């Protein structure tokens, strides 16, 4: 099974004051995760267990050039699956984007580390 644990991408924003929101979904059933989220060098949240509920991270006009760094580690504590997954949803920019990341571990108890680097980019500037 193909794996996808690293994400490096651009998220297109514009010059409006519309809010950009972030949501993180950690799966699968019964797994144990911890996440750090940083925007440039400022911490959005540290040592978050489980999902990150949809929340504003800034306005389009303010985000150009900034980098969102998400690091998550997931331990497979699930008795039903060995698949770990992290889904990142960004909305409010030019388009809504969903980034699915996943990895199947070989044996129960193993951990998977996810590293995501998302640069906000306004091509009109």
């Amino acid at each position, binding site marked *: 099974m193909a794996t*996808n*644990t*690293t*994400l*490096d*991408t*651009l998220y*297109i*924003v*514009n*010059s*409006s004051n519309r809010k950009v929101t972030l949501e993180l*979904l*950690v*799966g*699968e*059933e*019964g*797994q*144990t*995760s*911890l*996440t*750090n989220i*940083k925007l440039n060098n400022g911490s959005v949240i540290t*040592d978050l*267990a*489980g*999902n990150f509920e949809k929340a504003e991270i800034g306005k389009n006009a303010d985000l150009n050039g900034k980098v969102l*760094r998400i*690091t998550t*580690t997931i*331990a*497979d*504590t699930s*008795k*039903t699956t060995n698949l770990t997954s992290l889904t990142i949803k960004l909305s409010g*920019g*030019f*388009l809504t*984007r969903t980034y699915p990341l996943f990895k199947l571990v070989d*044996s*129960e*108890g*193993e*951990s998977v*580390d996810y*590293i995501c*680097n998302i640069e906000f*980019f*306004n*091509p*009109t500037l």
Partner: protein
Amino acid sequence: MEKKIYLLLIFIACCSTIKAQESTDLDLLRAPISPASNLLGFAQSEIDKPTDVSDFMASIQSATNAYTTLPSNYAIDLAPFWLLRNKVNMGDISTVGLEKSSGKNVLKQTLVLSIAIKNPDSIAAGFNHNSTYAGLGFRFSIYRGDYDFTTKQKLHQIAELQKLKLSFIDKKADSIYDNLPTEINELKEKRKRIFTDFDSNDESADNIALGELLYKKQSKLDSIISIKIEELFNSGEKSEDSKTIDDKIKKLASEFQLARVGFSWEVSGGVSNEFRQKNFNNSKLYNAGLWTTLGYTWEKSGALLGILRYLYNPDKIFALDDLTNEIKNISTFDTGLRYIVGGPQSKFNGSLEAVYRSVLNKDTYDSSWRLMLNLDYAVLKNQKLTFSFGRNYDGTTNDDNNLIATLGTVFGFGNKR
């Protein structure tokens, strides 16, 4: 100690009068896992439990002979929340999200719909072999209890190790991004050039379509850059500290069991119809039931469970299990208590249960009760030695045939989960 308990169970069983019974319910107070299948007498092993839509379609295809006939003898349990996991907003299903004891999500996560169809053969007791039977049932929890101390402690230990691990990951990620090779920086610049002259302030349909196309082009470069960064991340020797943390997390996580204590409340129900002469225009209610199980589980001193159960046309007329119900249109109401000794994660468990059955709409039958002792010991993760011992009473004294005892082993093959 464990060896002694094991030997003691074998000894008790050998000294007991073992009476073979075709179907002895060992824990009457447990509400059926699959209500509709239970009403129509299906064994647990006969019930399909698809975990995703593909499994479900395969199950239907097999039962209907590739969609050409109606299922003949078929029982299925569907958990809509888990079955449609990719189609619905699941919310938080990690160990943090599953911690909640009650609420909307608990109802959704624990809901099971049970469907069963039976075309009995001529030797099936209690069924007319010229009829077709169909049942529909449900089960859900209103309260499912809180994590026990061991579960919380292990989750806390894992979280502390994960904090340390994340600090290593963050440092490494910072170091990689601060010193990106020229090749990757050039690819990143190339990626930005895809959007040259693109106006992200124009949100017309045409421009959005153009944006989608450019995103597709961008995603190819995203993949190349991500793979190169992953290679950098995985390159070099892992530090001893990092290896130790990984080993500790793996040990804790592989042994992790999610166990609950505190108040629990579960509701189940089901109804089945008999279609005479296998004709769907000629039907009558065959049997029905509504159960609720309330309980409280303590950390160390066991659990107390209570059940209230209404049954219409139960398969047994008395609480004892050796007299089949030959009377029709009868309703019974059961109240029961069960005390279980042993913690949620202990190897040895014992329980004492009592059931009192009242016949609601026939004066001919007195109320009856039953008492049962069950013991079980988990020899291995998937192997259990079980022992049951009981006495039941139907209003007439009979000293000879009301003692039952069974010794059994339950083996699970394959994965030791």
